[in-house]
Structure formats: C-alpha cells, structure tokens
C-alpha cells in the first residue's frame, strides 16, 4: 500500500513539474551527451549498441530475446520464456552486471538477473560491454556488463505509440509509450502488460517407442511494467531526471518433459516484484561535469505463494569529471549503499553498508591514440574486494572512407559473494573472499565506406582467468559456500555487417560468430572429474546471420541463429544437441498525415525445429506473432 502511495505521489509530482514546465516559455542551449559516460574510459573494450530497428522488432520481447538474436552471448533458457541466465565468454550468470541508471539490477541474494524479466519495451538503448569492467562498474562485471537506458529526447510536443501483439500460445502484449515535452521538460511513460499461456505442444517418445503430442503445462507468464521518467533542464547547465520503474513478473516454472503421456506436470510458480526509483542530477561546468544520483530499489520474490525473499536498498552516487585541456579527462567519485534484506534464513536485524570509490583517466597520447587508466575499490563488511585496476587503449587509423580502430585492454575484475553466500542460516560465511577475474583482450574494428557500401567488421579476442569461483558443497548434511573453482576462458568473436542501398530501399546483411573455450582448471575437489572439460552449458560455437530489406514502406527480415552443442552438468556423459533457429519478419508502414500505422508479422522457428536449450526442457516449434503499432506525432 505504502508503495502505491509513493508511486502515486511520484506520478503526481511528475505531472506537476510538467504542468509547470509547459507554462514557462524558455529557450535553452542544447545539452547533448553522447554515449554513456563510462564509454570514454573503456576505449579498449568491445562495446555493442542496440540497433534501433532490431530493438523495435523485438519490442514485445525481453533482454534474453535481444541477446540471443543480436549478440554472440549465450543465453541458457530453462524452458520457453523461463529463467534466462546469461553466459558472457564462458562465465556464469552472476558474472554479468546489468545496469539501469547506475544501479546494478542483479539480485543481492542470488547474484544474478533473469534476462526474461527485463522487458525491451521500456528502453531505447541497450549497450553491451564485453569482458571485465569492474574498474568501471564494480562487482559482477567479470564476463561482461549490460546498460539499459533511455536518453532524454527533449521532445517539443508529444509522441504516443500504442502497440498490440497477438502471438501463438496465448501470447498477448499491450503497450503504450508516451513522450510529452516542451524542449525543456519532458515526461516519458512506458506501460505494458504481457500474458503468455505457453501451452505449446511437444512430442515425446514413450517407453515402447510410441510418439505422443504433449501440451506443455505449468509454464504461464504474466509481466507488467511501468517506467515513468521526467527529464528537465533546470538551469542553463544542469539537468534533473526522475525515474520510477515498477515491474511485476509472474511465471509458473516449466517442468521438464514428461516421459509418458499420462504423467502429471505440476510445478512451482514464482512472482518477482521490483520497484526502482532514481533521481539524477547533472551539472555542467565549463571544465567539468558533476553527476549525482540517489535511488531506492525494492526487490521482492515470492515462491509458491509462500516463501518470501525481499531486499531494500538505498543507493547514492556522486562523481566529478574534470576536463583538463584537450587531452586529459579525469573522473572520480564513489557510491554508497544501505541494504536491508528480509529473508527467512537470515538474521532478523541484518543490514549492510557498502561503498565504492573510483578514479578514471582518459588521456590522448597522440592524435588518434588514447589510453585509459581506471581503478576502483569496493568496501564490503566481512569480505575483501580487491582494488580493481584496468588499462585500456585504442588507436584509430583513418584514411578517407576507412576507419580502422585497434584496441586492447588489461583488466582485473571481481565479484563480491552474494548475501546468500554470506548470511544464509548458519552456513553463510563471512570469511569468503571475492571472486577474481583477470582478463586480457585485443581487437579491431573496421568501418569502410566504398561508394554506397558500408562495411563494419569487428574482431575481438580474449583470454581470461576466473579464480576463487564460489561453489556450495556439502560438509555432512549442511551445504556451505567455498572459494573453489578456477576457470580459463579464451576465444574470438567476429561481427560483420554490410549495408547498401537498392532502388527505393536498403539492404542490410550481417553475420556474427563466437568461439569460446572455457575450461575448468580447478573443481570442487582435487580429483574432480570435470577438470579439463568445457564448462556445462557453454557452447563452443555460436553464430548468427541476418538479411534485412527495406523497400519503400515494406520491411522484410530473415535471421538465423545457431547454438552449438553444450555439455550438460555431466560434462563427460551428457551432450545437449546444437540447434538452429530461423525467423522471418515482414512489416508494412502506413503514414496518414502525422500518424503512422504499422503492421508486422513474424514467423518464429520457421523450420519448426524441435530443440531444447537446456536438456529436457521443451521449447516451442514454429509459431507466429502479429504486431500492430500506431504512432501519433504532435511535434
């Protein structure tokens, strides 16, 4: 109830500001911030930005869909639209930091994010940074990090989009995006509701070889999300942003496939609710930028309508960026968090303070050659986090229409043990050390424009050690966490794209490929049979191709994604077969004055491939999605 009142108050405040803003007539200089603030301090790392066309096509989907279709990163999905865990460069789901407004969304209790609970509809930009980046982002950024954001558009007037999707297996998505502003103040609202019965059919072969069609039970999904942002240029050189993101994600937990047609498929259910409130203030001085924010995050999880896991945190960030001459930028700052967990197995009065301090340097050494030096220290009670330094550099070779950027980075990264690791019952340990990552990467990016052809080609190679990887193991009947495992990961990632105009349109062809070898060097105990093998659910190979044609107001897109064989948990005896998924999209735009209507049809898994991402969890065959979008522009 309190939350509803808080939300309502916030909403009213937003509307109040807006009303006030619209009365004033102001002309302000444009304050333009390009890219995310951290990017200038990570010149040596591979950063991938979401293509707005792809993001729009996946508008009713989740971050898991985006990652699967647009990156070489592997998403382990435990059933259709069920728990989706990310694996960047062979690391685990808790080795990826997911940020929204400088808040790491990873659960404090479990240490990771379910990528199927992050709706794409709410965000305009997704920035994926590959490799370790703890010096910039703190804990968890060992394998990679993801930044969800919506930059202010400083709209004058209004823009409203309605979206309605109808898909197979009771998939219904309704969403509204509404941007209203006067150039100085703007309100951005995103609301959606998504329901999925997920009662797709799959085929089993029973004990005597007979085949049966089984309807999937207990796999329903219901997501609701609201994101309200209010952005304002409060003075000539300062901005204020207030954001509230409320999400409710319910899903039944899809059980494994049955082995006979009569078998019951009962299962569990989980409800996640989150509230994230942030107020950000930025002040632009002639030689510097002051950034500050204060936020509140409430994470709530209810398992089977009974077991509750809850954390509340208050987060404050403060940093200052000095621009010293033409060649030097230094940014320094810190953050503090106060965390109050409420978990049945934790001490009742448990609270925790933690904080970070950091410093980053961007130095232009020569024309087109820049170097970054970054360092960060996290302070957490009862556990030691290392000082995480990094050195990152890039060199740009430019010749007319050809831009070739070489980049390289050395990084130490870390992950603080989760609350469960440290405080669970009598087993949680306050003497665990942080997990440590050491990574090295080299790459280059080529941008080449030959007459009408634009070529973009990126190569990244990396080598990484993750040590002190925390695993739980039994000592007698009790399980406890230990700093046990050590993993070596190395690989190469290729991304290529070619675009060229055709008569009345554009052709966009792309391909991506990743080879990742992640070997367990130290396991649960000295003679662990898994040592020397590729980690479970870590494909050696992934690739994807796409071809998009825009012709007049018509769009046709075909994409295909291949995920190579993964080992199951038993890395010696269990192989989970590779799969290739192909999707086709057709869409048509109709303009009527300022209004824009579009209709889009998608055929997913066109080849009706019977596959599993995680062994024994059925996935749907060929299925369909129709999206209707209506955009009203009043600029």
């Amino acid at each position, binding site marked *: 109830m309190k939350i509803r009142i808080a939300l309502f108050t916030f909403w009213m405040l937003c509307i109040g500001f807006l009303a006030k803003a619209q009365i004033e007539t102001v002309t302000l200089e444009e304050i333009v911030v390009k890219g995310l603030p951290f990017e200038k301090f990570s010149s040596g790392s591979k950063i991938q930005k979401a293509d707005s066309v792809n993001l729009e096509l996946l508008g009713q989907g989740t971050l898991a869909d985006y990652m699967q279709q647009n990156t070489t990163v592997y998403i382990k999905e435990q059933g259709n639209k069920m728990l989706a865990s990310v694996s960047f460069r062979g690391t685990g789901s808790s080795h990826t930091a997911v940020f929204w407004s400088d808040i790491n969304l990873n659960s404090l209790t479990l240490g990771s994010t379910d990528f199927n609970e992050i709706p794409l509809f709410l965000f305009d930009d997704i920035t994926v940074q590959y490799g370790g980046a703890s010096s910039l982002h703190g804990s968890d950024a060992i394998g990679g990090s993801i930044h969800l954001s919506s930059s202010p558009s400083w709209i004058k007037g209004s823009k409203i989009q309605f979206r309605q999707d109808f898909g197979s297996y009771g998939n219904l998505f309704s969403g509204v995006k509404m941007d209203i502003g006067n150039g100085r103040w703007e309100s951005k609202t995103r609301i959606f509701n998504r329901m999925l019965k997920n009662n797709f059919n799959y085929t089993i072969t029973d004990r005597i*070889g007979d085949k049966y069609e089984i309807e999937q039970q207990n796999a329903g999904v219901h997501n609701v999300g609201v994101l309200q942002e209010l952005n304002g240029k409060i003075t000539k050189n300062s901005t204020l942003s207030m954001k509230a993101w409320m999400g409710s994600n319910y899903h039944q937990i899809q059980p*494994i496939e049955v082995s006979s047609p009569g078998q019951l498929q009962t299962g569990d259910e989980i409800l996640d609710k989150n509230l994230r409130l942030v107020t950000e203030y930025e002040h632009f001085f002639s030689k510097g930028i002051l950034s500050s924010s204060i936020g509140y995050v409430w994470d709530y999880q209810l398992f089977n309508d009974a077991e509750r896991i809850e954390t509340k945190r208050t987060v404050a960030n403060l940093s200052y960026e000095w621009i010293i001459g033409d060649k030097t930028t230094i940014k320094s700052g810190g953050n503090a968090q106060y965390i109050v967990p409420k978990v049945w197995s934790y001490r009742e009065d448990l609270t925790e303070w933690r904080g970070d301090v950091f410093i980053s340097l961007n130095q232009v050494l020569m024309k087109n050659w820049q170097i970054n030096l970054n360092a960060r220290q996290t302070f957490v009670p009862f556990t030691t986090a290392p000082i995480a330094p990094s050195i990152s550099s890039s060199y740009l070779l430019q010749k007319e229409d050809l831009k070739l950027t070489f980049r390289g980075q050395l990084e130490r990264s870390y992950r603080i043990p989760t609350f469960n690791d440290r405080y669970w019952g009598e087993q949680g340990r306050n003497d665990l050390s942080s997990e440590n990552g050491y990574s090295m990467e080299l790459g280059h990016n080529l941008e080449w424009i030959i007459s009408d052809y634009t070529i973009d080609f990126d190569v990244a190679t990396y080598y990484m050690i993750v040590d002190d990887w925390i695993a739980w193991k039994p000592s007698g009947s009790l399980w406890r966490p*230990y700093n046990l495992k050590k993993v070596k990961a190395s690989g190469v990632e290729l991304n290529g794209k070619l675009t060229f105009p055709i008569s009345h349109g554009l052709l966009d062809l792309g391909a991506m490929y990743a080879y990742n070898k992640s070997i367990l060097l130290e396991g649960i105990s000295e003679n662990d049979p898994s040592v020397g093998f590729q980690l479970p659910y870590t494909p050696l190979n992934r690739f994807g191709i796409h071809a998009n044609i825009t012709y007049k107001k018509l769009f046709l897109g075909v994409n295909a994604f291949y995920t190579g064989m993964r080992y199951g948990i038993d890395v010696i005896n269990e192989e989970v077969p590779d799969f290739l998924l192909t999707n086709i999209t057709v869409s048509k735009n109709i303009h009527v004055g300022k209004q824009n209507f579009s209709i889009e049809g998608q055929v997913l898994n066109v080849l009706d491939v019977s596959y599993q991402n995680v*062994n024994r969890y059925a996935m749907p065959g060929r299925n369909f999605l129709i999206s209707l979008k209506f955009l009203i522009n009043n600029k």
Partner: protein
Amino acid sequence: MNKIIKSAAFSAIFVTVLLFSSCDTGNGGDEIPKKTGVLILNEGNFGSGNGSISFYDEKSMTITNNVVQSANGGSEIGATVQSIYQHDGVGYIVCNGPDKIEFINMDDFSYLANPETNLSQPRYMTVVGNKGYITCWGPWDFNDWTLPDSYIAVMDLNTKTIVDSLECGSAPEGIFSIGDYLYIANSFETNITVVNINDLSSSKINLASMPEQFSLDASGTIWVSVSSGLYGINSMSREKTDSLLVSNIDGKIAMDGTGEKLYLLAVEPWDPNKTNSASEVRVFDTKTKTLSMTALITGEDFYGIGYNGTTNKIYVSDSKAFSGPGQIYVYDDQGVKLDEQITSVGPSGFVYK
C-alpha cells in the same frame, strides 16, 4: 523360547539390507552366489531430470554409465533418481521430478512398466508379498518448509496401481519390513512408525533424534541411523534396546554380508580453513556393540556407502557437490582401495546383482 523364535524367524527372512537397497530373498547360507555386478544410482540434479544408473563390473573393474538409457533405445529415466529397490528380478527406481516409479528388468535393464501413480515426492520402497510400500514426503508447505502430509503409498504390484495409503510421521525416509511389520523412519521427527501389515494398526517408537535408514544385523536387531548415532531395535519385541552416540554421522549405513559389521559414513566437523570436510567410514561391531576408534577409510566429500555382502567389497561414492560427474571408490573389507571410477551426477547408492 523367545530366542528360538527369534533365530527361526531370522533365518527365514534374513536379508542383507544395504543402503537404498535390499537383495532378493536369500537363504543366508554359505552358497550365496557372488554378485559381481553393481548398479550405481546417480541421483542427478534437483529438477533437472538427469538421474541415471551406472553399472560396475567387479570382475573386469569397468564402469558403464547410463545403462538404463542404453538398454532402452536412448529413452532415459528423465527424473531425479531417489532410490532403487530390487525384488524378484525387478528393479523399482523411485524417482522425483516427475514423481514416478520405473520398473526395470534387473537382467537387461529394459523397462517393464512406468505406471501412473500420482505419488508425491516418493523416497524409498520395500516389498512384502505382492505389495510395494513407498515412503512419500507429500507436498511441501512452503510457508515454513515443512512436510505436514507425508504418507506411505501401498502399491499392488500385480495391477501396478496404488491401492492404499498409510499414515506416518513427517518426511519418511527409510522403510524396512520384517515379519508382519513395517518400520518407517520419520526423518523430520524423532520417532519411527511401526505398522502391522495385516491389520494396519500402527505405533511409534520414540528416539532422541531424527531417524534415516535401517539395517538388520545377524542377531535380529534393527539398527537405525539417526542424526546423532545409532539405535538398536529388537525386531521381535519392537522395542528400543540400544543407543549409541556417534558424532557427525550422516545417516548413511551399510551392513556387511554376515550381519556383524555395520559401516557408517561420518564427516569431520566443519573447519572454515579447509576447502573440504574430511569424510570417513567407521565400523560398528554389532556383536560387541562398539564402534571402531579409528576410521577404516578416510577421504573427501563421501556421499553414499554400500557393501557387497557376496564379494566383501565396500563401495563409497563422492558426489562432487552435484557440480558434474561424481566418483565411486571400491575397497576391500580391510579398507584397501581397489579401484575408482567416474560416474554420472550425484552417485549415492549401490545395488548388487
């Protein structure tokens, strides 16, 4: 008189009871054929359906994993395997997630039946006559992680249907039958339920800590492993006769072929400075009712124990915390290691054929 009845009853029904298993009804004499084939139960990960059976051949000292899947054209068990009970050439594989009982032919591991049972979290099974008795945890109460609706399912093995359910305490684990009585270890309580299978009357034997498994010795005493040691129960009078405190026992026990030595898994107290808790096998002499002062076998992360009474080999499994393939170690009865093999995920129990 009592003693005569006791020994007569015992010789008629003497079975070598090993953890998670019971042999075929034998004669208890000297001419027990050697059972050199060992089925190893790999539990698999919770909810992942990757439980499996491995087969170890004592003669060639080789292991074959996933034997049930291989024997059935690739059709895997597809569940977490909780226990196996062997009776009259049939292996009853008790599974969770999905909850079911798979019947296999113990000769070639082919599936015999996969009946619809609607059991809720079945754990262990025993057979008396043509009826199977299955301990079932029932559904969790997620408010406080308790098991308020546990029961014993009674299966008619001819029709392969559940015909009755018997009351018991919370979280029944081991189930053991001797004569007309069933003994059920209520592992979330500190008592044992005893059921007369003729009139279905039941009573309880109170203990001071939570029971896990049963094992019958040569004198007819039923030894119950509990979280703090062992209790002896007279199988004739159904009364508690002995209690023994053993620190850090983890409830896993295995009786030798003569019914004179009981092997126990124990774990050293947790030490935060070590990356594992040393595990050990200790020996309890059922005649003198004394526990060996020193460990017969020491190692790391032991999870299951078995004893092949026909070849006098001790089997110990190491689950590797279910993080990948596990291992088994084979010892002679003096604790000398003979072999070690890699299994699938979570090896926990042994059955001999």
